[in-house]
């Protein structure tokens, strides 16, 4: 097993664990802001997972999926903030 394979395997395990922890925060999170931050972090982890997967399989096509996911995650967080701020003002 080469070094890069070892590194990607360890990354997969670590990212999987962190997704589990973030999912716990998503379920428990007392306030809605905690849940939104957890969702944002979840998509960041998904992007990291896609990057590791692209390294493992030696393809570059999946990286575009990561770019699109980054755009949509940013847009989702901004939209959540937009509607949260509007909701509290009323």
């Amino acid at each position, binding site marked *: 097993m080469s070094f890069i394979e070892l590194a990607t395997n360890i990354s997969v395990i670590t990212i999987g664990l962190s997704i589990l922890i973030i999912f716990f925060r998503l379920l428990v999170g007392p306030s809605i802001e905690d849940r939104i931050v957890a969702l944002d972090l979840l998509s960041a982890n998904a992007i990291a997972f896609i990057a590791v997967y692209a390294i493992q399989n030696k393809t570059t096509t999946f990286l575009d999926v990561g770019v*699109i996911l980054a*755009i*949509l995650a940013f*847009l989702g967080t901004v939209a959540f903030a937009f509607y949260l*701020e509007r909701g509290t003002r009323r």
Partner: protein
Amino acid sequence: MFSVILSTASRYLLPLLLIFSFFLLLRGHNEPGGGFVGGLVAAAAYALYFIANGVDEAEKLLKAEPIRLISVGLFLAVISTIPSILIGKNFMTGVWLDTNFPLIGKIGTPLVFDVGVYLLVLGIALKIIFSLAEEDR
């Protein structure tokens, strides 16, 4: 809600995202991508601009009614089926020109169809986003 940072960032992100959506559209025939996901990325770019600057600015920037985009997209998709009939092949067979254009590659009816799908998806997504935004104004 108006944020100077988000408004400035969206002004620079919009052309970048539109270029990326166009890249996805043109690459789509042989590799992952295509009209659908390109249209979605373009709609995400306009949605970001709408959140930062308000729905009026976004509609002014678009310059065309979303419903018109939908109709033009459907029209292009229908148009792209005609050359296959004229040439005597099966309906909706891809017809390609032999010349290679720089940057775009070969031009054929699948490209026209993909552009139609792109405009259709962009129009429908923007129509939904703008109607939801105007709903609670």
